[in-house]
């Protein structure tokens, strides 16, 4: 089975982001980058499926040259080879999906495993748009994946509970956080990853125009919520809720 998985290089999710004074973007000096959290789950699932069913895991990133670091991390975890589609442009999800559709056309994987959302742009669109472009079925927000007879049976986290869907492969799965426990890259894994193939392409090589459909005009900080007051005890709390906030 050939498995394609995607990783986005994002700012460290535990870091406080600051905005440029001219609102043109976020401050990038001193910022740490890492693999998008949800993609760690996606890569882990891809490797687990390969371990169970055999085949190959190809990991793809679209972004700056520095994203080779996240691709090497995925290969250190166990992916077999990597493709970087290099660009410094700001991409919307639709452009990423258009690039991925071309990569899929070349690679012809049986299944694509992605993260459910990039934790920087918080859009949660790319897997679904790609599904539509390829006309493949999708199972988003996966917490459980089983492959049987050319179908994937996927448990999904949805409002109101959980849902189970079967999709015939080729298909697309997007990972939620409960899907698995991503492994750490071992030292031998890291050494091996250095020699694994990493192909670099450009959107032009793939014949994709990456012009966005959605343009960001400016970045602002949200209104800060000031810290309130500490109360002495439960009685004090009840009195404040009743008399000050008037919410009970």
């Amino acid at each position, binding site marked *: 089975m050939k498995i394609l998985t995607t990783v986005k290089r994002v700012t460290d999710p535990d870091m406080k982001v600051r905005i440029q004074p001219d609102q043109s973007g976020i401050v990038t000096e001193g910022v740490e980058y890492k693999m998008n959290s949800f993609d760690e789950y996606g890569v882990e699932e891809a490797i687990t499926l390969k371990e169970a069913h055999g085949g190959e895991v190809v990991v793809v990133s679209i972004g700056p040259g520095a994203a080779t670091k996240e691709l090497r991390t995925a290969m250190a975890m166990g992916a077999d080879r990597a493709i970087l589609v290099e660009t410094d442009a700001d991409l919307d999800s639709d452009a990423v999906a258009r690039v991925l559709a071309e990569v899929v056309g070349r690679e012809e994987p049986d299944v694509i495993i992605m993260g459910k959302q990039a934790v920087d742009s*918080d*859009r949660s*669109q790319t897997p679904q748009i790609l*599904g539509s472009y390829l006309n493949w079925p999708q199972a988003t927000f996966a917490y459980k994946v089983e492959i049987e007879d050319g179908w994937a049976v996927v448990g999904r986290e949805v409002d109101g509970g959980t849902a189970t869907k079967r999709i015939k492969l080729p298909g697309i799965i997007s990972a939620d956080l409960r899907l698995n426990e991503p492994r750490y890259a071992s030292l031998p894994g890291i050494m091996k990853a250095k020699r694994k193939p990493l192909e670099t392409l450009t959107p032009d090589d793939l014949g994709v125009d990456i012009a966005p459909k*959605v343009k960001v005009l*400016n970045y602002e900080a949200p209104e800060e919520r000031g810290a309130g007051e500490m109360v002495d005890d*439960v009685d004090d709390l009840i009195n404040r809720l009743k008399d000050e906030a008037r919410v*009970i």
Partner: protein
Amino acid sequence: MANVLVVAEHLDGALRKVTLSTLTFAQQTAALTGGEVHVLVLGDNVDAAASEVAKYGVAAVHYANEPVFANYMAETYAPAIAKAAQELSATVVCAPSSTTGKDVLPRVAAKLEAGMVSDAISVSDDDGLKFRRPLWAGNVITTVDVLTPVKVVSVRTSDFDAPPEGDAAPVKEFASGVSAPDNLEFVSFEQVKSERPELTDADVVVAGGRGLRSGENFQMIMDLADTLGGAVGATRAAVDSGYVPNDWQIGQTGKVVAPNLYFAVAISGAIQHLAGMKGSKTIVAINKDPEAPIFQVADYGLVADAFEAVPELTEKLKTIT
């Protein structure tokens, strides 16, 4: 005409309240474009939901009762929504930013060659429609311009109230032309049944975190919620630890809530959690660690052991409510 199409959401044929907040967004948008608000209801038993939503000041409701829509699936709903958008000359297509909206709308956008905005919190007209949306776990707000003629928008419903009721709009049948695909299959929906209000429209939310240490200990969170007629929520850590169902998760990757009163009990206050509750009117934090970051966003902070403070609070509230 530049109309706005709202995709209604329902559960077993009952209209979900998130649809009403989305209607408010749609009405604000239509006021800017000069178009009408149309609503699409897809399912196999949606007559009641269709006549219900018709009461909220819309131009018309279009519904399809077809077996192919018996169970929601993005692959069958997306082409129907795209077809309705074209037939109704919609330039904005919107739905709640629920798991269903997030799942289906990007496929609709792809079909309509439209750009999509996720989690819109406002719309304005400044040389064309502009939308604001949070990202980076709510630490950044951007204003975006969708450059395509048709714009697809998922709406963060906690930022919009339900519209007032008006005259009933006409309800019309819509033929989707969608046939059942052979490459996918709905298997099951395991619903978390609850007598409590839905998290996304409760006036009071009581949320618990990993500090509660077990599912049994969540009983005190439920008791407090029930005393106040509220809903129960949780952090990702509490969900991951298996204390409570995933449906209760609040935050960047769970539900976004903005009740009048929010209790954060034994919750540290990670940015990913704050992303889902910072918009609450009054926030109360109960945590035994005085340094917990949650106190920085709480209106009232109580440093206490939850196992003592919460039962005491519930008992005392029972005597006054």
